[in-house]
C-alpha cells in the first residue's frame, strides 16, 4: 500500500488555466500495488472530486464480471507517487489513462496501481521482512 495524489491531467490543467477556470485540488489517495492488474484503476468518487469526464472506454475482466468483459469508463489524470523522503523525487505521470472501478474504499484503498505504471519501475518484494520497495 502507498500514498499517492491524483490531479487533473497536465493538458486539462493547461486548458483550465487558459480559460481562467479553477483547477480542482489534488486528491490524496491510498493505493494498492497490484501486479495482477493490467491497468491502473481508481474509485469513481476520486474522478468526481476532480470534475472529470471520460475520454475513452475500456473492456475489463474481473472476478465479478464472469467471462464477458464489462466496458468501463477511462479518464485522463495525473498521478504522483511521493518519494520515500524529501530527498527523493516523486514518480510523476502528468497524463495517464486510468479506469473507474468501485468498492476500493471498503477495502481500505482508493486505487490499484497496475502494471501500466509498474512497467516503469523496479518492484522488490521482501516477504521475510514484510515490505516492498518501488524503484524508478
Amino acid at each position, binding site marked *: 500500500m502507498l500514498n499517492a495524489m491524483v490531479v487533473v491531467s497536465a493538458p486539462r490543467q493547461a486548458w483550465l488555466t487558459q480559460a481562467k477556470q479553477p483547477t480542482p485540488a489534488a486528491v490524496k489517495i491510498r493505493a494498492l500495488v497490484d501486479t495482477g492488474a493490467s491497468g491502473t484503476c481508481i474509485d469513481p468518487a476520486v474522478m468526481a472530486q476532480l470534475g472529470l469526464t471520460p475520454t475513452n472506454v475500456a*473492456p475489463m*475482466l474481473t472476478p465479478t464480471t464472469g467471462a464477458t468483459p464489462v*466496458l468501463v469508463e477511462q479518464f485522463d489524470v495525473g498521478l504522483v507517487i511521493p518519494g520515500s523522503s524529501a530527498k527523493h523525487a516523486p514518480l510523476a505521470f502528468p497524463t495517464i*489513462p486510468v*479506469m473507474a472501478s*468501485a468498492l476500493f474504499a471498503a477495502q481500505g484503498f482508493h486505487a490499484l496501481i*497496475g502494471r501500466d505504471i509498474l512497467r516503469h519501475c523496479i518492484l522488490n518484494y521482501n516477504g521475510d521482512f514484510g515490505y516492498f520497495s518501488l524503484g524508478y
Partner: protein
Amino acid sequence: MGNIAMALERELAAYEANLETLKAQEGKFVLIKGDDVIDVFTSYEDAIKEGYQKFGLEPFLVRQIRALEQVHFITRFIEPRPVEATA
C-alpha cells in the same frame, strides 16, 4: 460496442466505422469528436492535449488503435463501474 447508451457513443461508433483505415496506424492514438476523426498521434499525451486545445471540456475520445481490442485483466475482487450506469 453494441447499442449501449453511454457517453462517447458517437465517438466509439466513429472509431469502429473507421477502424479498417486506422489499422494502418496501429499502436498510435486517435482523437475523435462526434462523428469525425480529427487526427492520429504518436503519444497518448499529445492526443489528449490536442483534444483539450480544440474542444475544451466538451466530450472527445482518445483511443489507442488496435486491430484486436485489448481487454484489461484485474485479478482483485473489485466492481467495475459499467458505462451503462453513468449514461
